[in-house]
């Protein structure tokens, strides 16, 4: 049988308590290593068992436990002595790391640096990795599933005329040709009548863009539609919704794994905090999509500043909502300012 320490480091005697598996009786004993080998010796000097330990382990009860042949177990509180005789047990580095020592300050600094590195870079690596292994068929299924659910509960078939549809489709095709391509297949346009969501357009992760009838009716100008579609396609090609999904999943799992053992309050604080941080992440995505949408509209030959006009009219009609740090979208004023700056370049 392979033992962890076939050779003792030096001769010596350890005092402690011995017991045998299957018998609860515990007796004072000595573990002796000398010229005639290693053996466990009972109270009256009788030899209980010969041999080196099969396993050694430091317990939190302040003992070092030796598993000896024949189911004997020997526990000694003389950990220093045991290490002198048998050498350091496997895993001793961990016990040493855990012991009360000024070195723990370094461990604390390591925790803070590590947590910062995960937040700053680690998450992005995880998210990119997850997106790489996501099969396009799955993303396509997400699009189809959401579209059919919308058709069941929220949307009616479009009431737009064929001429109107053809006009918007023409804008869509020229924007789709000018936009960066998506990894998940070609862009597709869908028209729906959705009174509940008003004038709106949105993109599903697989490249399906839904434009509502109200959108065409209220903001039907070619340039504004081009800007809005460019913005939505940017969400798709930059994989914004998948990134947000994977990012919140990773954050949740990492917090549950790492902070779960730290304590319940810290876990809650971190989860709430990460929810607010993820909002800022979403605002960054909106700003990025604005920038890319403006560039796409310009390449396709539309007025790049029209998107700003869209937000200006939106603001006039619906007002601005709530404090910025609690919102998924940047404030309209900021967006208008950014779009006009980019369009003027």
């Amino acid at each position, binding site marked *: 049988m392979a033992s962890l320490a076939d050779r003792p480091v030096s001769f010596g005697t350890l005092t402690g308590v011995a*017991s045998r*598996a*299957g*018998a*609860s*009786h515990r007796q004072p004993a000595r573990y002796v290593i000398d010229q005639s080998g290693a053996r466990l010796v009972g109270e009256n000097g009788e030899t209980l068992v010969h041999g080196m330990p099969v396993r050694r382990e430091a*317990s*939190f*009860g302040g003992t070092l436990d030796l598993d000896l042949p024949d189911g004997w*177990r020997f526990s000694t509180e003389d950990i220093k002595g045991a290490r002198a005789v048998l050498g350091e047990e496997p895993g001793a580095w*961990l016990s040493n*790391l*855990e*012991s*009360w*020592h000024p070195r*723990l300050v370094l*461990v*604390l600094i*390591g*925790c803070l640096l*590590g*947590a910062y590195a*995960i937040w700053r870079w*680690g998450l992005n690596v*995880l998210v990119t990795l997850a997106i790489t292994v*996501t099969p396009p068929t*799955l993303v396509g*299924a*997400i699009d*189809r*599933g*959401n579209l*059919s*659910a919308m058709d069941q509960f929220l949307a009616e078939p479009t009431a737009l005329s064929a001429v109107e549809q053809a006009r918007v489709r023409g804008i869509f095709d020229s924007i789709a040709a000018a936009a960066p391509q998506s990894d998940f297949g070609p862009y597709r346009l869908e028209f729906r009548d959705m009174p509940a969501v008003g004038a709106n357009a949105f993109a599903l*992760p697989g490249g399906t863009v839904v434009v509502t009838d109200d959108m065409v009716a209220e903001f039907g100008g070619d340039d504004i539609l081009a800007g809005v579609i460019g913005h939505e396609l940017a969400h798709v090609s930059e994989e914004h919704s998948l990134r947000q*999904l994977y990012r919140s*999943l990773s954050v949740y*799992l*990492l917090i549950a*794994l*790492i902070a*779960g*053992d*730290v*304590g319940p*309050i*810290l876990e809650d604080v971190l989860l709430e905090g990460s929810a607010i941080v993820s909002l800022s992440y979403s605002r960054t995505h909106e700003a990025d999509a604005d920038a890319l949408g403006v560039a796409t509209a310009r390449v396709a030959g539309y007025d790049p500043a029209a998107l700003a006009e869209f937000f200006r009219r939106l603001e006039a009609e619906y007002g601005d909502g709530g404090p910025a740090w609690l919102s998924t979208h940047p404030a309209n004023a900021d967006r208008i300012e950014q779009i006009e700056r980019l369009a003027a370049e």
Partner: protein
Amino acid sequence: MQTSPEITLHPVKFTGSARAYFGVWLSNLLLSVVTFGIYSAWAKVRRKRFFHQNTVIDGRRFDYHATGKQILIGRAVVFVGFIIYSVLSAIPLVGIVLGVALLFAFPWFLSRSLRFNARSTSFSGVRFGFSGTYWGAFRVYLLYPFLALFTLYLAYPFVIRAQKNYSLGGHSYGTAKFTFESRIWPFYKAALLAALCSIIIIVVGVAFMFSAGMFVGLTEVLNGAEPDPTQSLIFLAIMLLVFIAVLPGYFIYSAFIRNTVYEATMLEGGHGFISTVRPLRLMWIALSNAIVSVLTLFLMVPWAEVRMARYLADCTDVEVVGDLNHFVGVESDRVSAFGDAFTDMEAFDFGIPG
């Protein structure tokens, strides 16, 4: 007639120090962070071993034997399942079907988890066991709570008792079985006292706010008038009041239920358990723990956990019929006679109820 053997009262002691746990806790944190959470499986083992190995009855210790690898496999299964579930949930109908499937799988995970934890735990070298079934868990964690809905949850204490019966009555130590038998009244008493305490605090609090004139002009706001900023503070104050009211109720309930459950639990051979947790003391420890933890940026969490473990141990005694040495010895012999049939590969180690 035989004279009944003498009953010995053995206090449970917790011997761990906050200082010793601090290093374990911080090392766990560091290694978990640098391994992207993978080490957390081993961290859990270290933490459990610290608390188990420092819990002592009559000089004999508890121990925890699960390996980091077992925990990691269990977590990997849950992890992959969670990712698949979350991604597929983005497809509406699939999400609903998966949710229902998961609901029915829940009792299975729960009974597996209870069994794994029991078998990974030993006292004085003899392992615990758990024999609760899937349908047992299905009844007490899904079916009964669902049925209690139709009694407007007035029958919920019966559900709680059934859950305790399932989780505790299914356990064994060596070959000796635990049994759980309790009247229903203590469960109602705990719930009623907790509710009463919360209601009194809310009534007093609202009366105080009323007399302080905090509700003036509120009817106009409810009728659609623009609230001025001081009035929105009222909603904050009401939320705070509910929080303050619920807390003592929670601790009263927890303390009474723990005491009841220990009293109602017996180990084959006539051995009993005593718990003497006092609600106010429990609340004081929990609240001061939370405040100290937050004020020290969580560095005192290890101290708080050790303090709570020590209090709960101090409130716990075991009544042993005859000699503890003898009892442990008999169980030890019986267990080794039929061998240790512990072969679980993986540990599903999420929240174990009571």
